[in-house]
């Protein structure tokens, strides 16, 4: 699939934002005073700007409100509801804490639930697609939520928790890469099943339907060289998970080290999210001579 920068930025930032909000809502991090205000602002700002970015990715952003109508069947619609609900609950919760000094814990828990629900719904938009076998697996929501929790605790300054979560997340990501490489073959969809013709070695695309590109080939038939995949995976694993975990679990972590860990993680996670899209093969590629 085409790794659209807007989608990578949106899913990454909203994950971080909602992860941070969840940490604050659960009371795992409870910064006071001005610092608290800054944290709430950061969480709401990250998730809010990510949602705006995603709306502008649409062909018709002016019709975005219509996307709330189909929550019964559509994960994208559910995501819109959950995100708005989470933002509303957290805005209220943060407002009460900052301006009235009231910390109503259950309100924070509700917000945390909605925030993680939002991240889960985002992931389900991908995981529901049987057409992309690499995504069509429970590991997709698990990893998205894992990124939100690890990234959120990292931003919230919970160094030990973040270190442990990053190690678990890194292990999960390695397993998902290993597994993902096998899911297309396991899905049963192949060129012979796609066309109903021939035997796997005895069929090839002789002539494509068009000489140039089209919407489908640009969106869904994205290919990256395998040798780059291996390198990018190493970069993602080292920067995204291993290095920040090591930094955070150092005996003493000051602000500078924490900042480096945050930057490392965001860079690595962005590479990992880029791979999430770029490596995902859509079954329509079979009609364009990709895979068997």
């Amino acid at each position, binding site marked *: *699939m085409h790794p659209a920068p807007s989608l990578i930025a949106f899913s990454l930032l909203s994950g971080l934002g909602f992860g941070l909000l969840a940490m604050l809502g659960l009371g795992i991090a409870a910064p006071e005073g001005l610092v608290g205000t800054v944290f709430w602002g950061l969480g709401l700002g990250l998730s809010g700007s990510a949602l705006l970015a995603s709306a502008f*990715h*649409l*062909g*018709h*952003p002016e*019709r*975005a409100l*219509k*996307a*709330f*109508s*189909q929550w*019964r*069947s*559509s*994960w*994208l*619609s559910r995501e*819109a509801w959950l995100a708005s609900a989470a933002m509303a609950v957290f805005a209220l919760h943060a407002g009460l804490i900052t301006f009235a000094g009231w910390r109503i814990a259950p309100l924070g828990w509700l917000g945390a639930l909605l925030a993680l629900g939002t991240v889960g719904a985002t992931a389900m*938009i991908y995981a*529901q*697609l*049987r*057409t*992309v076998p690499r995504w069509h697996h429970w590991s997709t929501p698990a990893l998205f939520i894992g990124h939100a929790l690890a990234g959120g605790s990292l931003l919230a300054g919970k160094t030990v928790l973040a270190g442990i979560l990053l190690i678990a997340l890194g292990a999960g990501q390695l397993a998902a890469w290993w597994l993902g490489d096998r899911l297309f073959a396991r*899905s*049963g*969809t192949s060129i012979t*099943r*796609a*066309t*109903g*013709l*021939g*035997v796997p*070695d*005895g*069929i*090839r*695309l*002789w*002539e*494509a*339907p*068009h000489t*140039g*590109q*089209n*919407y*489908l080939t640009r*969106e*869904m038939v994205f290919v990256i060289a395998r040798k780059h995949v291996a390198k990018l995976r190493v970069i993602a694993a080292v920067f995204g998970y291993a290095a920040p975990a090591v930094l955070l679990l150092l005996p003493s972590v000051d602000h500078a080290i924490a900042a480096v860990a945050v930057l490392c993680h965001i860079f690595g996670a962005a590479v990992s999210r880029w791979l999430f899209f770029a490596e995902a093969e*859509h*079954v*329509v590629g079979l*009609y*364009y001579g990709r895979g068997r």
Partner: protein
Amino acid sequence: MTDLPPALQVKLGLVIDLDTCVGCHACVIACKGWNTQGDAGPLADADAYGKAPEGAFLNRVHSFELTPETGPAQIVHFPKSCLHCETAPCVTVCPTGASYKRVEDGIVLVNETDCIGCGLCAWACPYGAREMDPVEKVMKKCTLCVDRIYNETLPEVDRVPACVRTCPAGARHFGDLGDPDSAVSQLVAERGGYDLMPDQETGPVNKYLPPRPRDAEIDILAPFLEPVAEEPRGFMAWLDRTLERI
């Protein structure tokens, strides 16, 4: 709502005969023509006269080469458009309700004034049957020519999808696949019509008829074409020898 309708009685769709399709792309052009001029049009192109022309099409013809273990290779032309699936994944993913499946005949349509152009339905379709209009930024797909098939201002012969009407090889058939007695259903039963990508569990209404096995002996003319003399004679032989010597 983008919930799917319950099991339908009438299932309008196409039956595509891979044995007869000659790969002329006439259906592609007829489809583009009708849908760019019709009610839902235009069906836009980007950079149509430039270096990298590209446009939205609702029907495309792929061609595959089959190499059986024995016998000669064979080319199969493979037209592909929306299969109006019974459990259409493109419909249920749509957040706005723009994508829907009609209860009365099972046609899958996009209500363009509701479409936000998120593209998710195109991701959900395994067959590549949906394309974003590069100018209008809304999703386009085969309508089964819903603006022809019920159109009483057209002569009866034209009340079929444009691709079916135009196909010079008669490789495209239109009808009700929900009625076991219809001509299309009979054709499917007779010729072993099949579904594309059954593993995707989309329940496509459109069916494909397999190419018939080719005759083993295809060299009909060879016996009449005895090889001519390999060695030149007479004047040609002299010329040959002379030229060799120079």
